[in-house]
């Protein structure tokens, strides 16, 4: 097969330059995504923190199963195991074979199963909020970055406005107002509604950073030659965004997603702690820590277990997010 001298040269170039290919049938290159996965696999921190995250997620997902095996529900009260002042009997907050992490002072609920359900609430809220904010951010950021012009100006203006609003103050003002709008003064608020309000508040405030990030990336990519090549071939908006642009920015989006989740976990805890988040009925880290403050001196074990769990969860998420960034962008220095 002698097409031209040029080809001979080029083939020689390949054979001398590229890695040896023993079987000539199936030459499959390793995609950038695959290379990132290989780098991630080699990173011990990533593997340990990833394993922890997987463990936490499995616990949260399997909460009803654990309840069945453990034999105690999150609302069951064990008043008989409390003393006259409402303090749990026994050592370190009533830790025993039946109640692994002890009992809550006052109500006498089991801390372990409430932690498992609290994990479920926390992770659900954080993931839902992160998915919504990431989607909003990607859509708005891509539109602003790619189309530019007045749309970019409008989206930027809204982003600035959102960034300028004080999150805590708005959340404090908004949540009770919303609750009052749907429920009476003395009515019990359903747990699902509280969760939805929290997710909504996070979604309103959380999308700005992703939108900024995506917009910047899209603007940088828009002028790259491979994007221009697609435009010169007559590609439409859909092809440009989904085939040319987004595959090149999913790495920073993924990293910002994995770093947004722990941020929402702590925010949820903080809001529940100040009392604008979830009602006491819903098991949540924030509520538990808030309640435990009254017993800080008499029953320190009560603050210990939820505190340690939330710390481990957020720490693992942050470590994993950092490792992910390193794996996806090997050029960034440590």
């Amino acid at each position, binding site marked *: 097969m002698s097409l031209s001298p040029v*080809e001979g040269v080029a083939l020689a170039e390949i054979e001398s330059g590229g890695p040896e290919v023993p079987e000539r049938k199936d*030459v499959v290159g390793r995609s*950038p995504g695959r290379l990132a996965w290989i780098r991630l696999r080699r990173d011990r921190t990533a593997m340990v923190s990833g394993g922890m995250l997987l463990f936490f997620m499995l616990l949260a997902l399997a909460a009803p199963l654990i309840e069945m095996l453990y034999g105690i529900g999150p609302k069951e009260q064990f008043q008989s195991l409390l003393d006259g002042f409402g303090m749990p009997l026994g050592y370190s907050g009533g830790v025993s074979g039946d109640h692994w992490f002890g009992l809550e002072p006052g109500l006498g609920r089991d801390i372990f199963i409430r932690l498992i359900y609290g994990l479920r609430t926390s992770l659900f809220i954080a993931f839902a909020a992160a998915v919504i904010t990431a989607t909003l951010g990607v859509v708005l950021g891509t539109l602003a970055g790619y189309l530019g012009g007045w749309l970019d100006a409008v989206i930027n203006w809204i982003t600035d406005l959102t960034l300028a609003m004080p999150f805590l103050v708005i959340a404090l003002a908004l949540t009770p107002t919303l609750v009052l709008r749907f429920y009476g003064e003395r009515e019990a608020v359903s747990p699902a509604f509280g969760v939805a309000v929290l997710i909504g508040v996070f979604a309103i405030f959380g999308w700005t950073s992703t939108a900024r990030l995506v917009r910047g990336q899209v603007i940088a990519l828009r002028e790259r030659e491979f994007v*221009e090549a697609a435009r*010169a071939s007559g590609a439409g908006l859909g092809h440009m965004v989904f085939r040319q642009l987004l595959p*090149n920015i999913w790495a920073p989006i993924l990293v910002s997603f994995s770093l947004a989740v722990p941020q929402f976990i702590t925010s949820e805890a903080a809001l529940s702690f100040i009392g604008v988040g979830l009602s006491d009925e819903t098991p949540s880290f924030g509520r538990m820590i808030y309640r435990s403050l009254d017993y800080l001196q008499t029953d320190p074990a009560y603050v210990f277990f939820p505190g340690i769990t939330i710390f481990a969860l957020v720490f693992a998420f942050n470590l994993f997010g950092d490792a992910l960034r390193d794996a996806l962008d090997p050029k960034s220095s440590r």
Partner: protein
Amino acid sequence: MWGSLGEREERSAAEYRSRERRQAPMSEVSVAPSAAEPLLRVRGLAKHFPVRTGFRGQSLVRAVDGLDFDVRPGETLGLVGESGCGKTTTGRMLVRLLEPTAGTIEFEGRDITHAGRRQLRPLRQDLQIIFQDPYASLNPRHTVGRIIAMPLQVNGIEPPGGVKARVQELLEIVGLNPEHYNRYPHEFSGGQRQRIGIARALALRPKLIVADEPVSALDVSIQAQVVNLLRQLQRDLELAFVFIAHDLAVVRHFCQRVAVMYLGKIVEIGDRVDIYERPQHPYTRALLSAIPDVTKLGPGGRIRLTGDVPTPLDPPSGCRFRTRCWKAQEICATEEPALVSRGGGQAIACHFPESGPVAGESGGTAGVTVEEVSK
């Protein structure tokens, strides 16, 4: 082998078949290019970029300011000039990546200057571009197969025998191993990447390719291979090229006609032999004498231009080159020289064109004068 590429298999897509027919008789036409109807006709093409200066002030960068040239079928036109003279802007306007401010671009007699996206569709297939930077011009997340198939995909063309067969055929045409279909760009060298870019441009069987400095990012030995490949393609597929470059040696090797640009205007245009052997515009002479040549060391006949290129924000009045020209006189400041033919196929925009061969013996006078200016 090369010529029979088209007939190798049955092509079902009607569009595709008509392209085959159109390309077939062109071989006879291109023998006598001067007689043929131009494939591309550019008249008064201009691109002005608005820039903000200070508070509320706005002025125009005249990146390209009135170009006239033709490209005939199967012909290669070289566009040379120093950085910032508007070569790349011109190339991008030709493939409609940039919207021209003024002037017209006609392709096969149709005015395409302001054609919308739908009208551009068939045209996109005839006009393709090869980019300068082989590292930025391939999507790092796509396999080579997907990159080359992209033009087919976005235009909804289903080549007979399948996209994969066509892509592998293209890989073979540009001298790459068709087995490397599933590899990613980062696994290839610069020269190989540029070949992939060429294969992508060929995917739609274009008639004209704008090559925007296709070899300037490659090292010299690879440059020769890529230029030879382009020449081979030009002959076998009857392609016309607008070849943008700043390397005069490469242009001399590749192009039949050459246009020299300075500050957004063509100062001289003509056949390769005329431009290289008998340049008449002082700027062309200066440019040619600047070619490094190890056989001619020393100050000899080198013309040294002083100063920088004036800003396109406020180009000089009259002849744009006058601020650096050693022959400039009063008329150069007041009257802009038109691009006129002074016999032969050569057109020069100068009030005092030079004559005679370049540099060395007779060009010495120019060299001496410039030497004085530079002191």
